């Protein structure tokens, strides 16, 4: 059995990491540059990998080390690389795609986060791996990623919003489903990679058709 670390230190570190993931999500809400969205996603994935390693070390679940490694290769390096490659043809970097002003968007983000925390409080969920507040943080990340997708009007932010949604679910699964079979976790990651390629293709197609990464022109189909 692995030595159980001082609970105060462990929960302090992990809750700090979880909070950092949520803060990164907020940064995506406001970031003005398209390429910095991708860097934020890469950084957020790095923190998720760190959190997975922390849980692996403290709780003695070696599978999670492999998962953290895969996260590092796929979500920190490969996926951002793919998106950068897709964006290569686009000279525009200033997004200018906030549908509301930044302060309002942050306010909405905070509101849904608070809702997420309260909703999780209301559930009777106990975790053997991570402090329960981390679950509230994960749900908040998922909800804020929805806000990113809805309130950012460019294909890069919308795609990155979806990928970071998956990061939020990863954190949630570390809290309540750390024992999730390894093969399933790998299937999720492979699936994410396929989704990234398809998002990339569609971003390219959109960019070639419309000569912009903004989604404002996507308003023909109604009714």
């Amino acid at each position, binding site marked *: 059995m692995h030595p159980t670390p001082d609970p105060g230190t462990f929960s302090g570190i992990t809750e700090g990491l979880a909070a950092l993931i949520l803060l990164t999500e907020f940064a995506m809400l406001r970031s003005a540059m398209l390429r910095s969205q991708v860097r934020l996603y890469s950084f957020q994935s790095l923190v998720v990998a760190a959190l997975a390693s922390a849980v692996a070390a403290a709780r003695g679940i070696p599978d999670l080390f492999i998962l953290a490694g895969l996260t590092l290769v796929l979500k920190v390096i490969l996926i951002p690389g*793919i998106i950068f*490659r*897709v964006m290569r043809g686009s000279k525009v970097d200033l997004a200018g795609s906030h549908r509301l002003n930044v302060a309002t968007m942050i306010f909405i983000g905070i509101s849904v986060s608070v809702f997420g925390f309260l909703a999780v409080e209301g*559930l*009777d*969920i106990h975790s*053997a791996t991570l402090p329960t507040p981390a679950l509230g943080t994960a*749900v908040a990340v*998922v909800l804020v*990623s*929805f806000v990113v*997708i809805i309130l950012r009007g460019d*294909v890069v932010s*919308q*795609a990155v919003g*979806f990928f970071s*949604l*998956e990061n939020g*679910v990863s954190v*949630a*699964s570390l809290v*309540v*489903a*750390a*024992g*999730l*079979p390894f093969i*399933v976790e790998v*299937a*999720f990651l492979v*699936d994410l990679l*396929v*989704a990234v*390629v*398809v*998002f*990339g*293709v*569609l971003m*390219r*197609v*959109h960019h*070639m*058709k*419309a000569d912009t990464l903004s*989604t404002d022109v*996507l*308003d*023909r*189909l109604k*009714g």
Partner: protein
Amino acid sequence: MGAILVVILVMPVVVGLVAWRSSPALAGGLTVSAGVATFGLALALVPGVGSHSVLALDSWLRADALSVVFLVATAFLYAVTSIFAVGYLHGPKREPREVLDGSRRLGGPLNLITFSTPAEPGTLLYSQRFWAGLNFFAWSMAVAPIVNSLALLWVAIEITTVISALLVAIDNTEGATEASWKYVLIASMGLGIALVATIVIYYAGSTVLGSGYELFFDPLLRAAPRFPPGIVRLAFVLAVLGYGTKMGLFPVHTWLPDAHSEAPTPVSALLSGSLLTIAFYAILRYYQIAIRSVGVAFPREVLLAFGIASLVLAALYLLSQRDLKRLFAYSSIEHMGILMIGMSFGVTIAVVGVLIHVLAHAAAKATAFFGAGSVMRRLGTKDMTQIRGGIGLLPWSGPMLVLAILGLSAAPPFGIFRSEFLIVYGGLSDPQDVAVAILVAGVTMAFFGLSWYGTQAMVTPAPEGAIRGETSGWIVAAMLVGLIALAMLGIHPPAQLDHLLARAAAELGPPR
């Protein structure tokens, strides 16, 4: 029996990969063969799931009667859509805008990013992508009902999303690009919610089964009565909302009319006839767990609420459509609403009706889309205010389209009449009078919307001097097969099928 599941898991992928590098004729021929073979295999599974489930690959694949119902629907569409697509792509009337654009230099299968190189319809590159995509899409939908784990079910459905998004975009028009982006984004958000549902149900299970178990159906269903009810309720609502996005339920249906109307017609048929019901299948798996854990009342209320909202909204929209394919898209939302309402009644006869409805809707909607494709090929438009004299211009597919539309609006003797009759009958015996009244009103409204606009475009005199003639015999053949299946479901379903449906309905009922 288990070997059949493995073949279904492997064959369409292999065919898809071969089609990617083949000539259009070879790719089409292979795809039709694979589709017909998959349908045959699905039928061969029917006797095997009569009393117990079929397992394969160390229990990672599993088919019970419920799986086979959805597998049969998907495989049937795989077969008829391939037949239709041969005519749709390679019919004599299609003028290739540019012949053989030397696409082979555009990289091998690994160079996926070059998929975004535009390929005009009629070119070799387009046809290779189309046939490969069609096989992969059908594969992902056929695999979803035979995987054993709730997590792999999610993976399969996410794969259906990304592959079909590429197929929606393949025509490379502005409309297709817009529809595809909206579709992949909205559906992925929905599936994000469904992923949370998967994690939550895993947590509920881990309180009984311990951590580190596979999310296989049988152990989950056995242990479900001891799951914490609050957590299961949460998982069920998340699953209905998440997979409901894929299924096109109101209020998360917004991607559906765009994607269905802008996609190439064979893809529209698969989206509507099969993809939507595969998402319904996922909801049914959560329903099975939920009724064991929290009783029947709560899950049925949730299904009823989503069902009524979808049916009413779709019936209203059906009254104001001009685009033939959008009309059919809203009709899909209507029928998905009917499935949810029928399931919420819960009595066995209504559940049997729901399962017939899954099969009959697949046959009817595919035939209707094929007819729309035929009209578009002949007249170059899907705007119903411009289509006149469809029956006169298209001696075979015209009348068959009218029949398919009548079938979709639940006219006897077709399968949808039978299934809706059983659902209403079940609802009245439950009794769920208010819901039944809304169901009948909604279906009637939809009947008027569909049959009025649909037949008005078809049953009018043809313009002066127009030449009668079909664009392709393949299209006529596909529609004929679809109509025969639809009529058979309505008039005299085979005894084997009745047995399968009864067995599947028992699996969906409360445990004995």
